[in-house]
């Protein structure tokens, strides 16, 4: 089955920043003396490959009656939304967290930038409003930050997908692999109904393991997962492939 394309242009354009670029000057944390603390970086500044984002082109999202041939095309389809670069530069990279070798993508600095945070939510809301989505599932814990504002704006329920033993009452759970060992994700029984159309939201997709677990939980109760949406993708970890035929929408792609 052909995977529904997020970017329906046949020639997606990646604007790739030079690897020699200095860490962005844009604010991360203000210092008390009026200066700025820049984003953490060691020898290797973060490189953001900014994925093409179509501002108004919204390919139909996986409903049974859609056909690829009906997808509209717009003259501006290859432009990147101007809001993306500010969102990207508001994200801070912390080297060697939680362990050596990992360049952690810290979205908390995005939450401190009121305009960039607003724009982040707006970009998702613009994509999903009016698409008959009744469920926004957010993955603990950073998915709880982005999911509810989106759900409220598009008129959907918010369903938290949680670590074990946090949700009271009856739950269903899904085990998934970690680098070492496994973890479990839980969802409330009865939170969603068969036939509902859902999004799964998290701050970042790495390997895709957590998102896959969330998709499985929802599909087990008959929900149609229309798309997964993340602020950041780490493409080298191939999470997109792991999602298989589930579409993935991201704002920033980071290597």
């Amino acid at each position: 089955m052909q995977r529904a394309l997020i970017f329906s242009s046949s020639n997606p354009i990646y604007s790739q920043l030079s690897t020699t670029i200095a860490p962005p000057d844009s604010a991360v944390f203000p210092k008390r003396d009026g200066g700025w603390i820049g984003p953490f970086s060691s020898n290797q500044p973060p490189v953001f490959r900014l994925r093409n984002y179509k501002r108004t082109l919204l390919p139909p999202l996986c409903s049974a009656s859609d056909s690829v041939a009906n997808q509209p095309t717009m003259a501006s389809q290859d432009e990147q939304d101007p809001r993306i670069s500010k969102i990207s530069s508001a994200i801070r990279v912390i080297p060697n967290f939680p362990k050596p070798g990992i360049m952690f993508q810290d979205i908390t600095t995005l939450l401190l930038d009121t305009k960039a945070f607003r724009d982040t939510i707006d970009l998702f809301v613009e994509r999903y409003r009016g698409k008959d989505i009744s469920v926004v599932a957010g993955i603990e814990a950073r998915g709880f930050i982005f999911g509810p504002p989106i759900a409220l704006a598009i008129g959907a329920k918010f369903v938290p997908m949680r670590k074990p033993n946090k949700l009271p009452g009856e739950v269903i759970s899904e085990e998934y692999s970690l680098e070492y060992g496994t973890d479990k994700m839980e969802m409330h029984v009865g939170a969603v109904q068969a036939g509902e159309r859902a999004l799964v939201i998290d701050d970042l997709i790495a390997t895709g393991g957590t998102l896959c677990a969330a998709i499985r939980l929802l599909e087990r109760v008959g929900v149609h997962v229309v798309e997964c949406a993340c602020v950041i993708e780490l493409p080298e970890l191939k999470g997109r492939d792991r999602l298989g035929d589930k579409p993935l929408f991201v704002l920033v792609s980071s290597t």
Partner: protein
Amino acid sequence: MVEMFAAENGLKGDPRLQAISNAIRVVPHFPKQGIMFQDITTLLLDHKAFKHTVDIFVDRYKDMDISVVAGVEARGFMFGPSIALAIGAKFVPLRKPKKLPGEVIAEAYELEYGRDCLEMHVGAVEAGERAIVIDDLVATGGTLSAAIRLLERVGAQVVECGCVIGLREVKGQLRLNGKPLYILVEPREIDGC
């Protein structure tokens, strides 16, 4: 008098409060025997009631010159960001230990048995900023108290704490460092109990 219930502070008879209360589910004996757990996830499933919840907080705080909304992990994350976005404030997550990357400050607080710790990023909040703290429920006030201390340690002014649910009976025993507490509804009881 530290606690303010919405129904007695400007929202008397507001039907939204009843809708919010009705949408909250009580789960008996969670996480242990004797505790009637106030489950707000059912409120999140009720789009109208969830929107009312956020709207009431937004209406209250939008003209108070608040630049920081601090939310306590994890259920504070479900309410805080929407409020922050609507009033044009930053959202600052207050987290369990070792979750926040980079430099943090930490504040310990008492649990019924043992202690726990809340962390905030260094530099997230500046001295002089006006802040509110948001959580789903206040019980003893221990977590909120730790949140207030974290913000005050960096020189922020905590204007108020806002919670969806709060107990009335603990007045006087509530540890909130003298800060006002605004509560939408009281805990629900099990129907038929």
